[in-house]
């Protein structure tokens, strides 16, 4: 039985992005030995606070956005490249913007290769896009399947104790199913603040949450 197909989506095609970067290369350098020119160098751009290179003189607008908390990631860089003025009014980046989203994705995939690797710096930015839960119809049809919940629960039990012990990390066993479902959706919608749980719940489908609720309601069975 085959196990699964590849799930995550690459950001774009970095080789095509290398071509797209030629539009940027008049002002920006990237790669070994890259230096600031008309624009700042773009090594380690992902995860960098906007306007934070010490040896480059930014526009006051970009400095202000950085001070306000703008950090370059997939989402913010995509918006900036699409239309610089829409994200940072008054930026000196005199570039009309790249309208084609696929081309931007390729460019971002190319730029991403010159930033920190999450294997070495775990807080580094993503290198792929999450896929929306897209399971077989057979699995999607299963409502609250405890067997599927038992499988999914293995991700929970790295931290939560299956025996219900409550030590630093709360117990999640023997909850009424509706309470479990409500809590998980609250994390998924980022209403509950815990970042680990927001991340874990964020990629669970409704069916998966139901399956987990069914399993943890009575994990001994």
């Amino acid at each position, binding site marked *: *039985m085959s196990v699964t197909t590849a799930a995550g989506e690459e950001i774009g095609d970095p080789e095509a992005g290398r071509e797209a970067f030629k539009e940027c290369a008049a002002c920006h350098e990237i790669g070994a030995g890259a230096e600031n020119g008309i624009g700042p160098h773009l090594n380690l751009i992902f995860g960098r606070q906007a306007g934070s290179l010490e040896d480059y003189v930014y526009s006051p607008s970009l400095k202000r956005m950085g001070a306000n908390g703008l950090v370059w990631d997939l989402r913010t860089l995509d918006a900036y490249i699409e239309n610089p003025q829409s994200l940072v009014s008054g930026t000196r980046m005199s570039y009309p913007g790249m309208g084609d989203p696929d081309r931007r994705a390729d460019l971002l995939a190319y730029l991403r290769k010159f930033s920190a690797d999450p*294997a070495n710096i775990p807080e580094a930015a993503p290198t792929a896009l999450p896929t929306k839960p897209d399971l077989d119809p057979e699995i999607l049809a299963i409502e609250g399947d405890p067997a599927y919940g038992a499988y999914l629960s293995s991700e929970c039990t790295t931290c939560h104790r299956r025996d219900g012990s409550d030590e630093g990390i709360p117990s999640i066993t023997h909850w009424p199913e509706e309470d479990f479902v409500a809590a998980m959706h609250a994390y998924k919608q980022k209403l509950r603040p815990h970042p680990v749980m927001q991340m874990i719940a964020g990629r669970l489908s409704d069916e998966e949450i139901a399956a987990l609720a069914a399993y943890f309601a009575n994990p001994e069975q």
Partner: protein
Amino acid sequence: MSLNRRDFLGASAAAAVMMAAPRVNGQARPHVVVVGGGAGGATAARYIAKDSKGAIDVTLIEPTRTYYTCFFSNLYIGDFRTLDSLAHSYGTLASEYGINVVHDWATGVDRDAKEVALAGGGRVGYDALVLSPGIDFVEGSVPGWDITAQNKMPHSYKAGSQTELLKAQVLSMREGGVYCMVAPPNPYRCPPGPYERVSMVAHQFKQNNPTATILILDPKPKFSKQALFEEGWQKHYPGMIQRLGPDFGGGNVEVRPDSMEVVIDGSPEKVDVCNVIPAQKAGRICHEAGLTEGNWAPVVPATMQSRMDENVYILGDATSQGDMPKSGYSANSQAKAAAMAIRGALTDARTFPPRYSNTCWSLIAPEDGVKVGASYEPTEEKIAKTDGFISATGEDAAQRKATYEESLGWYSGITSDMFG
């Protein structure tokens, strides 16, 4: 074809017998051999045995009878844990899960015959093999240091007696002495580990030897949780810690264990304790089995199968898999994906898409914990990061305390997940 109730019951009973009894051709039930009983191997062995409900025989080969977790071993150096609290036995895996635990070294793999050779002379056949051997060190990566020097200059990057040794050296260091850490180049086990260790050593010095100093020689320009650690060091241990990155010679270091010197860019410096963490590579058995490219063992992202042998699954620090850091949590997460894939391959078990995640906590000072974590998905090319988070600088004390307490809960959770 429609089945009546009697046919259905008969078919189910026959299927159950086939699952539980030896195959009619004389072969035993499918047999999985797991080499290495850490976060990857112990988890994989337990999940395969537990979830196959007797349909798969599992043998776990691990040389040590008592396993000391690398994770939290820094906390022992800082007096936040006892060494005993990091020790785990394999008794429950044997008694409750029926795993055949063999305390021996795996010395080679005959992939054609599907057999593992043991140092004690035995050979164990397998239908699927799991290798989770952790790391070994790259010889010559720190000039002047080799395994014969590890008593004078401990690495303490495999937990147990080395951790005890380093702590003893730290506690007996002369007043105002210098503790030096030679940090490893990427990639290596536990990216924030060396810097959490520095925090724990600094905590010891603050209590017992406040004029001592710490010198980090680092070949990397930046490191994990850097902003959080540097903020914490400034707050809790001002003036105690100096780090030389590659721009200041941190990447050009030689050590002289006999004279307790480190040579930085050609300049010798006398130190009192020297913690050398060399460059790393996959545990030796992966190289012996011919499953490595360079220093690491490449794997198929969705299943953790070796890229070179579909009957071998490789887990944890030894692998080259993509974006997941080398951590106990990662190994535990990968082990569950592999266990499911193996059950799918060897029995008719249902399989589901793998779910990879990692969270890593570090302690900077008493009740000042920070964390970083991410979720991952397999692509054809690698296990790729898709989301993540990190503690913020400037968090209040209550949040940091809660993060530390959460890490204690995680330790309890993951060790029960590994050892039952």
